[in-house]
C-alpha cells in the first residue's frame, strides 16, 4: 500500500513539474525509454546474478557454507549471550549470518526466521522481553555482504572497467552500519520503556 502511494506521488510530481518546466515531451518519451533502460539493465545483470547463484549452490552442496557458519559460532555467543549457547538457536543464527555474508538472500531468510522463532520461545520460557529477537532482526536489516555481485554487475553494465573495486569501501561501510545497529539495539534494549 505504501509503495502504491509513493509511486502515485512520484508520477504526480513528474506530471506537475513536467507541465511547469514545459518538459512534457521528455516525460512522455521517458515512459518509453525508461522501460527500455529497465530491459537493458536486467539483461546485462542477469548473467552475473545467475553466475553467483551457481557458485553459491556449489558452496551449499560442498559444505563450504556450513563451515563458514560454524566459524561464526563465537561471534554469536558474544552477541546473544546465553541464548547464543542454545544449540538450536545458534545453528539457525549462524546459517542466517553465513548466508547473508555470502549474498545468499534466499537461504538467509528461512534460517533467520527459524532463529527468530527459537529466540522468541526462549524469551517466553524465561519470561523476558525478546531483545534477542530484535537484535537478530536489526542485524538482518543491516546485513554485512562480502560480495555485492548485483551492484558490481550494474557498474559493469554502465562501463566500469573494474566493477569490483568498490569492495573495500563496501566492507568498511557495512561493518560500520552493522556495528551501529548492534550498538543501538543494545542501548535501546536497556532504556526502551513500554512493552
Amino acid at each position: 500500500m505504501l509503495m502504491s502511494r509513493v509511486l502515485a506521488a512520484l508520477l504526480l510530481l513528474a506530471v506537475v513539474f513536467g507541465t511547469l518546466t514545459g518538459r512534457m515531451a521528455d516525460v512522455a518519451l521517458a515512459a518509453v525509454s525508461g522501460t527500455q533502460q529497465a530491459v537493458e539493465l536486467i539483461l546485462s545483470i542477469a548473467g552475473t546474478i545467475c553466475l553467483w547463484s551457481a557458485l553459491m549452490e556449489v558452496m551449499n552442496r560442498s559444505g563450504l557454507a556450513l563451515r563458514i557458519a560454524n566459524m561464526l559460532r563465537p561471534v554469536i555467543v558474544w552477541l546473544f549471550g546465553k541464548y547464543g549457547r542454545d544449540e538450536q538457536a545458534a545453528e539457525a543464527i549462524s546459517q542466517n549470518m553465513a548466508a547473508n555474508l555470502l549474498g545468499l538472500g534466499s537461504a538467509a531468510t528461512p534460517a533467520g526466521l527459524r532463529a527468530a522463532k527459537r529466540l522468541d520461545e526462549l524469551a517466553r520460557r524465561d519470561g523476558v522481553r525478546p531483545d534477542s529477537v530484535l537484535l537478530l532482526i536489526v542485524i538482518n536489516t543491516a546485513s554485512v555482504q562480502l560480495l555485492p555481485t548485483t551492484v558490481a554487475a550494474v557498474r559493469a553494465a554502465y562501463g566500469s572497467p573494474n566493477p569490483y573495486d568498490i569492495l573495500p569501501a563496501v566492507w568498511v561501510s557495512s561493518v560500520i552500519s552493522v556495528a551501529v545497529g548492534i550498538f543501538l539495539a543494545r542501548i535501546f534494549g536497556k532504556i526502551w520503556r513500554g512493552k
Partner: protein
Amino acid sequence: MTNYIVPVLILFILAHGVASGTNVYSALIDGAKQGLTVVRDIFPAVLVMLTIIAMVRASGTIDLIANTLAPVLAPLGIPAECLPLALLRPFSGSGALSVGSEVIAQAGPDSTAGRIAAVMLGSSETSFYTIAVYSAYIKMKNTRYAVPAALGADVAAFLASAAAVQLLMG
C-alpha cells in the same frame, strides 16, 4: 588487489567443491537456473520503478531537489544525486536498485556519486521489509525499537559509504 578477489574466490569455491567430492557441474547448472528465477522475480519491480523514475527525472524534479539540497548535503560528503536512493533504500529493494542504477548511469560508474550509490546499495538492506517479515512470522505485535535501530544503521551506512568512497577511492 581487487582484481584478484573475484577470480581467486571462484577458483577456491570450485576447487573446494571438487576436493570435497561434490558434483560441481550439476550444482552450477542448478544454481544458475535458480538465478534465472531471481531475475524473473525482480524484473517487474525494476521495470515499474525505472520507468517512473525516468519520468520524474525527465520532468526536472530530481535536478531541482538535488540542487536545492546540495548545500546541506555537501558538508557531509554526500552528493545530492544519492539522496533519493538514501530515502528509498529502507522501503524497497528493487526500487533502490533502480534509483541507484539511475545514479550510476547518469553520473558514471566511476564518478564519486556513482561509486557512493554503488557502495550504499552494497552495504544496506531493505529494513522495513525485513522487520515486517520477521515480526509477522513470530507474530510479534510490537516491534519496539526495531525501526529506530534499523534506520540508525541505515543512516550510518549512508554516511559511511560517502566517507569510505572518498577516503579509500578518492
